[in-house]
């Protein structure tokens, strides 16, 4: 069971902190696949790096707590974090070619993950475990493959190797950061199926980060939609896709090209994600690009509130503000 509470990650630029992720909270159970979706720059990758303790030098976690299996690891020293990494929390990176050391055989890189966390195990044991996990990941002729170098493998195989590396110590949770972005569609399907299979068979929780809504819909049970560092909508995947409440989510879903939209102009959300130092903390982050923004949206950042079926961060859906707006409208009417 994996939990994040109120995570805030800031980049330090010229002496002041600029938040890249604010108020991120979620829970992932065993056997659950959680999706995190959003544009480039929304903070999804940074949040996962923060969880792994792999933030770049100019970024740090300024607020929040992180728990794995009940253990709080927010303030862990690098040494303790290193114990967790690869053992209880694993990460799969986007680009499998660069995630592998070009000068070491793939087998040895997988074994390394085992050896680091089982320092007293004999070499044969590490090798056997490696073969086993390679087979589980659908890799053929494992004894031979063990001795090959990354550049001798295809993209799909490399990503399977990376997944094997992440899984060999049977972690509680795997963070998959855009695992299929660098692969072609057919391989993409295979990798996703593999993740699904491993999730159901081994009970490993999966946090799938992607900008591809199709993938998220395919294998995730729950999803978090992020924008400019905030969670704007979260809940069950099917509900969100069929009845999105937040203007951003609505826009995203409307932008998906489908056969039915053939010949029509593609829907786009005007504008771009604002850079870090231009983001305001006092009004809704989506204000500039929202089609239905109004005065109330400038009064601060909306809270993540329930709309019955899931959670949304928007003044328009927030029940309290709706009441207020209704009262104001009534007052304006009676005046006129």
């Amino acid at each position, binding site marked *: 069971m994996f939990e994040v509470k109120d995570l805030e990650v800031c980049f330090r630029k010229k002496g002041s902190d600029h938040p890249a992720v604010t108020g991120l909270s979620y829970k992932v159970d065993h056997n659950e696949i959680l999706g995190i979706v959003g544009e480039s720059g929304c903070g999804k990758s940074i949040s996962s790096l923060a969880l792994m303790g792999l933030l770049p030098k100019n970024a740090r976690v300024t607020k929040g707590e992180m728990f794995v299996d009940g253990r709080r690891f927010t303030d862990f020293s690098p040494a303790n974090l290193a*114990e967790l*990494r*690869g053992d209880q929390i*694993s*990460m799969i990176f986007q680009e499998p070619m660069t*995630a592998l*050391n070009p*000068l070491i055989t793939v087998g040895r890189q997988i074994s390394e993950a085992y050896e*680091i966390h089982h320092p007293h195990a004999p070499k044969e044991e590490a090798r056997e475990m490696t073969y086993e996990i390679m087979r589980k990941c659908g890799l053929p002729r494992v004894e031979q493959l063990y001795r090959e170098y990354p550049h001798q493998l295809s993209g799909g195989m490399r990503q399977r190797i990376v997944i094997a*590396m992440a899984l060999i110590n049977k972690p509680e949770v795997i963070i998959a950061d855009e695992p299929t972005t660098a692969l072609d569609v057919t391989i993409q399907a295979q990798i996703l199926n593999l993740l699904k299979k491993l999730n159901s068979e081994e009970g490993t929780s999966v946090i799938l980060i992607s900008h591809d809504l199709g993938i998220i819909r395919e294998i995730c049970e729950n999803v978090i939609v992020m924008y400019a560092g905030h969670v704007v909508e979260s809940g069950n995947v099917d509900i969100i896709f069929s009845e999105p409440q937040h203007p951003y989510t609505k826009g995203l879903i409307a932008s998906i090209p489908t056969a039915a939209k053939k010949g029509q102009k593609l829907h786009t959300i005007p504008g771009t994600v604002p850079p870090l130092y231009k983001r305001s903390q006092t009004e809704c982050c989506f204000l500039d690009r929202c089609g239905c923004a109004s005065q109330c949206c400038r009064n601060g950042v909306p809270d993540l509130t329930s709309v019955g079926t899931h959670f949304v961060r928007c003044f328009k859906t927030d029940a309290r503000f709706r009441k207020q707006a209704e009262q104001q409208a009534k007052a304006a009417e009676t005046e006129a």
Partner: protein
Amino acid sequence: MILFLFTVMCVSLVWTPYDPIKMIRGAAFQPAGADHLLGTDNFGRDIFSRLITGAQSAFLVGTFTVLIGGLIGTALGSVAGYFGGITDEIIMRVIDAQMAFPGVLIALMIISIFGTGLENTIIALGIMSVPRFARMVRSGFLQYRDADFVNAAKARGASPLRIMYIHILPNILSQLVITASLSFATAILSETGLSYLGLGVQPPTPSWGMMLKDAQQYIYLQPEQLIYPGIMITIMVLGFNFIGDGLRDILDAGSE
């Protein structure tokens, strides 16, 4: 070209003492002949044997200098490059300070403190070559420190030590080898210079630098005495330079 010189180098490696005893003999100033391949010097020592034995000193100095300079330099450079920050600053300032002194001066300083002789020469030259290695290793580490596979290794829980020496160092190995071979050449040259000044290897152990110096006195009497060590030095230094360049062409096509 490199191959030829490389073979000559290996021939030099036949420094298994051919005629070490013959170094002190009776007849002086013999010209090149059947008995003595290259003649004898002012003390009657066989020049050929001295030449070959001189190769021993040269190789010893070269190898150990590179070993000392390489190990210390790599250790310093890797720590500086990987950890960055204050550690980096401190280490590099020390290196810079050393580089501010002309190399030979440092060698002279060390020798004047500890005395002359083969061991001290090696130590002095070793220390002299540390900056070269440290800088090179540091830049290599800086380059790979943020590589994806390093992050991936960290994500597996690898310790800094493991990342530095199992992951990053092999990627730098090619550059290291090139620097090593070029340092070898420089070291031999420096040793020659020191021996010429009488501060390096001491007699009766033969050294090419010393042979040059001795030959200087008798240049009118037996000019060839001067030529032989000169040629050997040239061949060895050129040889290693070529090897270094050749290696660079093969391994590191991107740089320079």
